[in-house]
């Protein structure tokens, strides 16, 4: 299964520029997402990666306009197929959602209605957006179930969600998302609840469908392994901001931001055992995002912190072509003093 790489010359399917999400809380405004920009072409996978509370899920909800009512979305531009997602009406958005924009969530059980059969739910999506006859919808559902690797689709369509295993349910969700030929997939932790072997299968499936149907994908996950293997582009998020952004090759082979470096050190590598030294770690916790944010949001956990980190606004800047990072230090100066040599264990 050779991955057909995206063509950098293609026009992006989705372009986001300067997106902010502020959530009103009793103590003021919580800056959940600040100044996020990216673009996704067809067949391209962008991974948003970060730890809980970093704003990656809010970013995806913002793109689908499913934010809670207390949240305010502002952006210079969110362009999807000529629509500005930040400005179009709720009705126009409802027409795109589930139709041109496909969504997959972590827990398929919460997105599938337990009282309807799989078939009913798949057909419903199609009929809502495409109209047409129920038999046409059923035919498409069967075709897609086969596409997502479900043996005996006719029988499965008559089953209820609770009769399926987690992996099968996720395949159902993928089939449901494909019912209306979306141009972009937003997948929020699609494999987190699955066994490792099933995870690989689902990721392979997503990848091959993405190539076949020419879809762009935004994959949201905290799993660095998944990111490394799936991503064309990576955006590492921390405290609502993108702190490093670039190709997977750049971000994983030459991480520049101290947070990215720290995160990679935290991951046990193959062959690394405790007897040969501890895992790296990032002390402290994510700062409060309520109120005015100044300086670097990572500074209180950064071993390289210095005076200048708490001042002004730190912008993304290039480390190399197409590789951006948000730190006042030069790329060569962000090496963590305690980074263990990779593969130090015999």
């Amino acid at each position, binding site marked *: 299964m050779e*991955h057909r790489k995206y063509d950098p010359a293609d026009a992006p399917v989705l372009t986001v520029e300067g997106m902010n999400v502020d959530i009103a809380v009793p103590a003021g405004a919580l800056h959940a997402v600040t100044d996020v920009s990216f673009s996704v072409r067809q067949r391209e996978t962008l991974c948003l990666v970060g*730890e*809980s509370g970093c704003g990656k899920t809010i970013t995806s909800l913002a793109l689908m306009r499913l934010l809670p009512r207390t949240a305010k979305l502002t952006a210079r531009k969110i362009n999807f197929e000529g629509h500005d997602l930040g400005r179009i009406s709720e009705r126009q958005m409802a027409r795109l959602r589930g139709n041109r924009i496909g969504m997959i969530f972590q827990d398929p059980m919460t997105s599938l209605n337990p009282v309807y059969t799989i078939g009913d739910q798949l057909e419903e999506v199609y009929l809502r957006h495409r109209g047409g006859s129920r038999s046409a919808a059923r035919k498409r559902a069967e075709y897609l179930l086969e596409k997502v*690797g479900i*043996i005996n689709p006719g029988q499965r369509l008559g089953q209820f969600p609770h009769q399926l*295993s*987690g992996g099968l349910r996720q395949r159902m969700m993928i089939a449901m998302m494909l019912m209306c030929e979306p141009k972009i997939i937003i997948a929020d932790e699609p494999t987190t609840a699955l*066994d*490792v*072997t*099933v*995870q*690989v*299968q689902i*990721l*392979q499936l997503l*990848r091959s469908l993405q190539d076949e149907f020419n879809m762009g994908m935004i994959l949201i996950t*905290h*799993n*660095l*392994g*998944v*990111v*490394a*293997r*799936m*991503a064309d582009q990576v955006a590492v998020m921390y405290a609502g901001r993108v702190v490093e952004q670039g*190709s*997977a*090759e750049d*971000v*994983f*082979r030459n991480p520049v931001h101290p947070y990215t470096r*720290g*995160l*990679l*050190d*935290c*991951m*046990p*590598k*193959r*062959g*690394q*055992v*405790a007897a040969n030294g*501890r*895992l*790296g*770690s*990032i*002390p402290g*916790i994510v700062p409060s995002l309520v109120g005015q944010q100044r300086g670097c949001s990572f500074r209180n956990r950064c071993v390289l912190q210095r005076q200048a980190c708490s001042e002004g606004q730190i912008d993304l800047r290039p480390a190399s072509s197409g590789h951006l990072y948000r730190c006042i230090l030069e790329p060569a100066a962000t090496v963590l003093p305690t980074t263990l040599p990779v593969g130090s264990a015999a």
Partner: protein
Amino acid sequence: MTAAVLSAPAPQAAAGEPLALETRDLTKEFRIGRKWYSSGQPLRAVDGVSLSLRKGEVLAIVGESGCGKTTLSRLMLGLQQPSAGEIFVGGEPLTNVDRKVFSRRVQPVFQDPYSSLNPRKTIGEIIRDPLQIHRIGTSAEQNAEVEAIMERVGLARRLIHSYPSQLSGGQRQRVAIARALVIKPEIIICDEPTSALDVSVQAQILNLLQSLREQMNLTYLFISHDLSVVEYMSDYVAVMYLGRIVEAGPAAEVLRAPRHPYTRALLSSILTADPGLGLPEVNLGRGFPDPLNPPNGCRFHPRCVDALDKCATVMPRRIVSGSELIECHLHDTAATD
């Protein structure tokens, strides 16, 4: 299958010291759908598991959901009684003894730090609870003990009067560890202790568990599905499939030169942070078998890419050599049966 077979990971302790933990042919059978008119269908969640572990060592149990890891951990905690087989802790039989006796020697750290702490109790009350249950020490001594153990697991003393909802996931897991350690057990059953945590927090907790093990000479049974974590943490690995241990041995052997096709499939599904490698091919048939209707012969054969004819009919022998164990026809050179 004789009960005396020590299906390793660790060989018998050489010099006198009893094994920290040993199980012999531990089996747990549930009856599904039992009614007054029928005895229900048997489900063997744990099937003839024999393990042994020396003091201070870490044995990891790996396998997919539904493989029986959780039932095994509950048996080891005395929360469920085995249908057959025995458990020894420090050489003493602990099969069918009271939970209270068990609890002095074996303690758990569970997966979800959000559900493992009572939201209505303060951190201090939670950690002190085991001391009160076992009536250890006076109130002042208990206080001192709680503060000492909090310090040891890296919890600030001021958190003693806080509630779980005020703590981060990592802090909560530290509380769970402190509660497990406060009555000084010999064995800790870590049931997916970091899978609900962020990567950076996971690293902190794994490091903490390692330091505590070294300082307090603890023995861990470490249950996980994350093989990178298992490799980092453990001395021995046992791979479980549908209630049976199909391969076991020193972590270095099992994880670097896996022999069982299932172990190989599990290892190949590890996604390391190597960009450009793409997704691995996992050689594994689809479909998890129904535990209520386990396949004949080798339980893994329907998913096995290397299955032989006899795999579908003959149950593979358990082959033990040294501290290694394997249950697979492909590695049964004697080829009897």
